[in-house]
C-alpha cells in the first residue's frame, strides 16, 4: 500500500436573483377548489420563500420542488435525508444506517454543489461545503424547497447544481403541547416534546428531541459465491437537539422573529466493510449551534427584510486503530460564522418588480488538520427584476422576463476573488385551455454559477493531503428548460418536465502530486445533461394521491485529470443515471367521533447502477426499495392521539448506495404522538 494509506484520511474529512420556477406540489400548498357544477379549479399560489425576490411558484423560471405538510407525512423519515430522497433529480449519498453521513447530490454533480439553507440563510459548512442531512430531524421541518439548477445569481457561491431551503416548524397562535415517542428496529428510540402559543404579541414555540440507536443491523457480505451474514458494528448514535422559535409583531406591518437551534451527537463511524473481519472503532462528535434574527416590514409596494445569523459548529473524529507516527488519529474542526442579509423588494409598476440587497458574512475555521486558522469574509450584492414583457392575450397570460445579477467578493486569508453571476429567465404562461382545462407553462433560464474552494481544499494539512491556496473557483453555465401543466381528468393531474445542461470547468479534484501526497487542483471539466419528469394525481374526492417522478442524467468528465488520463468522456462515479419514485397514498378524514383520520402510504424508489471506478469498469447494481406506513389520528377528551406504523425496505433488499457501506434490511418503526 505504501504511503497511499495516508491518502485515505483525506476523504474522511473532506471526507463540501434567480427567479425559480414552477413548484411541484401535490399537498395542501397547492390545493384544488372543486366546484361540482362547473368543475373548475383554482391553483393556490406557492411562494418559494428562499428566493431573494419571493416568487409565485407557478411563474418561476427554473425548476422547483416543494414538500410540505401532508406530503412530508407520507414519507418514512427520521431525518432530512429521507425527506429529500424522493425528490426528482436528487440523490442522497448515504454511508449507511441512521448514524452514517448523508449528503445530497443533484443533477450529476457532487454534494458540494448544492447549497443548503435554513430559513433562507446559508448553513453549508465552509470547511467542506457539506451538510450532514442526518442531523436535521424530520419533525423539525415544516417545509422543504428544492431549487434545481444553478442559483448563484440568488445565493452566490456553491449553488451550482441547486439549493435546498429547510423551513423550520413555526410557532402558532393556539397554545399547544405535543409529545411523541418512537421505537424501532436496531435499537431505535426517539423522544420529542414541543409546545408553545401566543402571549400578547409574542408567539413562542420550543422543541426538544432525542434520538438514539444501536444500528447493529444484519447484512450480507459477498465474496464471489461466498455469502457471509454479518452484523453492523460501531454504528450506534445518540443525538439531542433543542429549538426555540418566537415571533413578535411590532406593528401591523412589521414583525421580528427569532430562531435558535442547538444540536449534539455522538456516534460510531462504522466505516467500509471490505471483508468479514473488517472492524472500525472510529467515533465522531458533532455540535452545531445556530441563531437567526429576522426583521420584516412591508407596505403596499415595499417589502424589507433583514436577516442576521450566527452559526458555529464543532466536529471531532478519532480512530484508535489509526496511529500514524505514534499519534492516534484525533482530528477536530470548529467554525463560526456571522452573516447579515438585508434585502428590499419594490413593485415599480403593476408589471414590474425589483429586488436588491446584499450579504455580508464573516467565517472562521480552525482545526488540527488545517495548516492555519482561516478567516473568510464574503460581501455580495444582487439586483433582480421581474417584468411582464408582453400583454395578456387570448392565448397567453403575458411573457415574463427575469433578469438578475449578483457580485460576490470573497476574501480568504490574503486572497480576494470577485465573481459576477448573471441569470436570465423567461416564463410563458398560457391561459387555461378548453382541453381538460389544461393550463400549461413554458419556462427557460440560463445562468453562470460558481463554487468557492473550501477551507479543506485551500489549507488541508493532514496525512497525505496538502491543500492548495492557489485554487480558483469552479465555474459553470447552467441551462434549464421546462414545461408544466395541470389538467383535470378524474381528478387533478400535475405534470412537470425539465431538461438541464450544466457545463462546468475548473472543477476541483484531489490528485496525486508527487511527494506521496494528493492535492486539489482546478483540472476537471464536466458536462451534465438530463431530464426530470414529475407527475401527480389527486382524485376528485382527495381519497387517492399518486405521485411519481423519473430522472435520467448523463454526467461525463470531458478533460484529463493527469497527463495520459484515459478516462475521457466517461461517466462520473456514484451518480445514478436513472432514479425513479412512486408513491401512492389513500387518506380519509372520517366523521367518526373518535377516529378522525386514517391514511396509508406506499412508496417505491429506484436508483440506477452507479459506477464505482473512474474507468467505469466496476459498478454497484441498481436497486428498488419499498416502504409503507399507516397513520391514524384519534381525538379523545381534547387530545389528538396520532399513531404511525412504518416499514422500510419492505422486501429486505441487500443493497449499498456507496461501495462497502452496507444499508439496513427491513426495519420497522412505531410512533405515538399526543397533541393538546
Amino acid at each position: 500500500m505504501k504511503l497511499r494509506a495516508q491518502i485515505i484520511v483525506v476523504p474522511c474529512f473532506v471526507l463540501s436573483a434567480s427567479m425559480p420556477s414552477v413548484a411541484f406540489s401535490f399537498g395542501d400548498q397547492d390545493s384544488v377548489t372543486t366546484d361540482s357544477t362547473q368543475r373548475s379549479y383554482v391553483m393556490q399560489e406557492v411562494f418559494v420563500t428562499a428566493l431573494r425576490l419571493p416568487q409565485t411558484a407557478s411563474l418561476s423560471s427554473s425548476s422547483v420542488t416543494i414538500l410540505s405538510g401532508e406530503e412530508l407525512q407520507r414519507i418514512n423519515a427520521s431525518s432530512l435525508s429521507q425527506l429529500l430522497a424522493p425528490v426528482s433529480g436528487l440523490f442522497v449519498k448515504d454511508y449507511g444506517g441512521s448514524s452514517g453521513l448523508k449528503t445530497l447530490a443533484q443533477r450529476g454533480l457532487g454534494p458540494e454543489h448544492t447549497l443548503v439553507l435554513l430559513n433562507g440563510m446559508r448553513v453549508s459548512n465552509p470547511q467542506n461545503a457539506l451538510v450532514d442531512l442526518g442531523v436535521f430531524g424530520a419533525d423539525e421541518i415544516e417545509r422543504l424547497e428544492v431549487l434545481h439548477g444553478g442559483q448563484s445569481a440568488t445565493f452566490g457561491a456553491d449553488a451550482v447544481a441547486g439549493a435546498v431551503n429547510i423551513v423550520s416548524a413555526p410557532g402558532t397562535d393556539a397554545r399547544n403541547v405535543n409529545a411523541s415517542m418512537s421505537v424501532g428496529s436496531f435499537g431505535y428510540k426517539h423522544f420529542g416534546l414541543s409546545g408553545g402559543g401566543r402571549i400578547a404579541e409574542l408567539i413562542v414555540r420550543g422543541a426538544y428531541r432525542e434520538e438514539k440507536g444501536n444500528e447493529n443491523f444484519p447484512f450480507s457480505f459477498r465474496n464471489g459465491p461466498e455469502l457471509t451474514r454479518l452484523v453492523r458494528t460501531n454504528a450506534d448514535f445518540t443525538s439531542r437537539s433543542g429549538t426555540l422559535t418566537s415571533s413578535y409583531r411590532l406593528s401591523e406591518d412589521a414583525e421580528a422573529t427569532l430562531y435558535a437551534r442547538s444540536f449534539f451527537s455522538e456516534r460510531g463511524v462504522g466505516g467500509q466493510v471490505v471483508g468479514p473481519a473488517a472492524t472500525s472503532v472510529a467515533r465522531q462528535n458533532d455540535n452545531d449551534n445556530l441563531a437567526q434574527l429576522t426583521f420584516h416590514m412591508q407596505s403596499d409596494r415595499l417589502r424589507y427584510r433583514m436577516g442576521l445569523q450566527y452559526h458555529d459548529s464543532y466536529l471531532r473524529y478519532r480512530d484508535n486503530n489509526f496511529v500514524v507516527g505514534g499519534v492516534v488519529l484525533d482530528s477536530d474542526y470548529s467554525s463560526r460564522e456571522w452573516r447579515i442579509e438585508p434585502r428590499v423588494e419594490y413593485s415599480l409598476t403593476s408589471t414590474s418588480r425589483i429586488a436588491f440587497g446584499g450579504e455580508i458574512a464573516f467565517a472562521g475555521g480552525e482545526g488540527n488538520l488545517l495548516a492555519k486558522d482561516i478567516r473568510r469574509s464574503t460581501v455580495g450584492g444582487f439586483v433582480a427584476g421581474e417584468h411582464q414583457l408582453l400583454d395578456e392575450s387570448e392565448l397567453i397570460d403575458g411573457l415574463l422576463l427575469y433578469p438578475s445579477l449578483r457580485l460576490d467578493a470573497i476574501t480568504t486569508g490574503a486572497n480576494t476573488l470577485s465573481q459576477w453571476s448573471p441569470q436570465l429567465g423567461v416564463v410563458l404562461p398560457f391561459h387555461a385551455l378548453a382541453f381538460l382545462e389544461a393550463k400549461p407553462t413554458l419556462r427557460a433560464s440560463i445562468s453562470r454559477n460558481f463554487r468557492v474552494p473550501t477551507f479543506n481544499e485551500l489549507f488541508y494539512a493532514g496525512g497525505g493531503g496538502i491543500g492548495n491556496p492557489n485554487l480558483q473557483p469552479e465555474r459553470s453555465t447552467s441551462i434549464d428548460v421546462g414545461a408544466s401543466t395541470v389538467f383535470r381528468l378524474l381528478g387533478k393531474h400535475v405534470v412537470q418536465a425539465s431538461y438541464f445542461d450544466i457545463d462546468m470547468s475548473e472543477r476541483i479534484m484531489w490528485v496525486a502530486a508527487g511527494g506521496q501526497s494528493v492535492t486539489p487542483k482546478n483540472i476537471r471539466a464536466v458536462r451534465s445533461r438530463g431530464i426530470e419528469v414529475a407527475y401527480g394525481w389527486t382524485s376528485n374526492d382527495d381519497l387517492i394521491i399518486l405521485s411519481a417522478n423519473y430522472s435520467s442524467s448523463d454526467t461525463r468528465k470531458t478533460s484529463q485529470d493527469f497527463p495520459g488520463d484515459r478516462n475521457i468522456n466517461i461517466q462520473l462515479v456514484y451518480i445514478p443515471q436513472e432514479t425513479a419514485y412512486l408513491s401512492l397514498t389513500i387518506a380519509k378524514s372520517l366523521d367518526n367521533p373518535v377516529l378522525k383520520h386514517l391514511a396509508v402510504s406506499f412508496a417505491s424508489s429506484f436508483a440506477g447502477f452507479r459506477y464505482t471506478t473512474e474507468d467505469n469498469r466496476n459498478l454497484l447494481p441498481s436497486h428498488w426499495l419499498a416502504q409503507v406506513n399507516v397513520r391514524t389520528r384519534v381525538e379523545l377528551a381534547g387530545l389528538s392521539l396520532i399513531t404511525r406504523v412504518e416499514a422500510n425496505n419492505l422486501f429486505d433488499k441487500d443493497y449499498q448506495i456507496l461501495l462497502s457501506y452496507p444499508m439496513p434490511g427491513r426495519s420497522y418503526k412505531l410512533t405515538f404522538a399526543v397533541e393538546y
Partner: protein
Amino acid sequence: MNARLLPAIFTVVAIVSCRNEPSTSSNIEPQPPSPVKAVYVLNEGNFGDPTGARLTVYDAERDSLYHDVYEAGNEGSHLGSVGDDMQFYNGRAYFVMSGSQNIVVMNLATKRKESEAFFPGSAVHDLLIDSTRNKVFVTRLFSSSVFVLDLTSLAIIGTISVGSNPQGMALVGNRLFVCNSGYGNDSTVTIVDASTHLVTGTLALAKGPSSAAVASDGKLWVACTGNAFATPPVNGKLFVIDPALNAKVDSISFNEDLYGNIAIGADGYAYVIGSSAGFGGAVHRVFTANKTVTLNFISGEYYGLAFDDARREIYLTNVRNFANDGEVKIYTTSGALRKSFAAQRGPSVVGFVR
C-alpha cells in the same frame, strides 16, 4: 384511461425504460490454467473495494498473460481488499491484504486457496517467512507491532512491539530488522531476535525507513522515504547496515523523497523509486560495491519494483493513478524497455517463481 391503473403503468414503464447494467470486471471469464513458474503480480486494487486485490500471472517463457488468476481457481472468490504483499514458499503463495485484514495462502499449482486467516482490527501489511523457525512475521501498519504467526496454521503465537507504522522487514541470520516508517515521522529500525521475539536493539536512521534488502555481501540496505510534509521537507536516504555490527556503515542521500521500496539485483545494484510524479516516480540505482548513484536511471512514474535475478531484468509497475488498470514494464539492466504487459488495478508487488 382508468387513472387508478396509473401506478401499475408507471411501474411497468419505469422497469422497461431502465438502462441495462453493463458487465463489469467482477465478471470472471473462464481461462486456461496458468503455469506455476511465472511472474506473479499482486494488484493492490482501489481502497474500499472488497474485491480489489487481484492476481495477474505472466508466463515469460510463452509470453502469455493471465488475469484474475485467484478468482479462476476459486470459483470467483476474491483475495480481499488492498493487496500489499506477496511471498512464496514451498509451492504456496502468501498474500497479505491490509484493507480486509487477512492473509490468504494459495497453492501455486492448483491456484486454490489452502487457508486463510483474519486479523480483525489489524491492517496487516508486509509478510516475511522464516522457514527455519516455521514462522511468519507480519507487520501491523497502524498498530506499531509485528505479529508472529505459525507458518503452518497461521495462528498468532506472538506480538512484538516495534516503532510506528512498521512496513518492510528483512531477516539476517537470527535477527529480524523491522522498518518503522512512521509515514515519514519515525526514523528507526527495530532489531528483533527471531527465536525469542525479544527486541534486541534499535537503529536510528532517517525519516521513513520503509523497506530493506540484503545485498550479496550480506550488508542490509534500508530505504528511507524522507518526509515531504515536514518543514522543511526531508529528502529520502539509503542506509547500509552491517548486521555483524548492528550499525550503519554508509548512507546515500537523494534530492527528493523516495517512494519507499528497494530491490537489490543480481547485477549488484540497489534500485529505488523516487517520488516526484503522481503515484511514484523515476527509478534511481546505486552500485552496491562503490555506492555510485545513477539518478533517473529509468524515467517515468513507477509504483512497484522487483528484480528478476534469473533473467536479470527489472520489473516496474505503473498504477496509472488507480484510475485505470495498471501495467508492468520490463527493463534490461542497461535501462532499455524490453516488454510491457497489462496488469490490473494498482499493480504493486511483483514476485518470481522459478
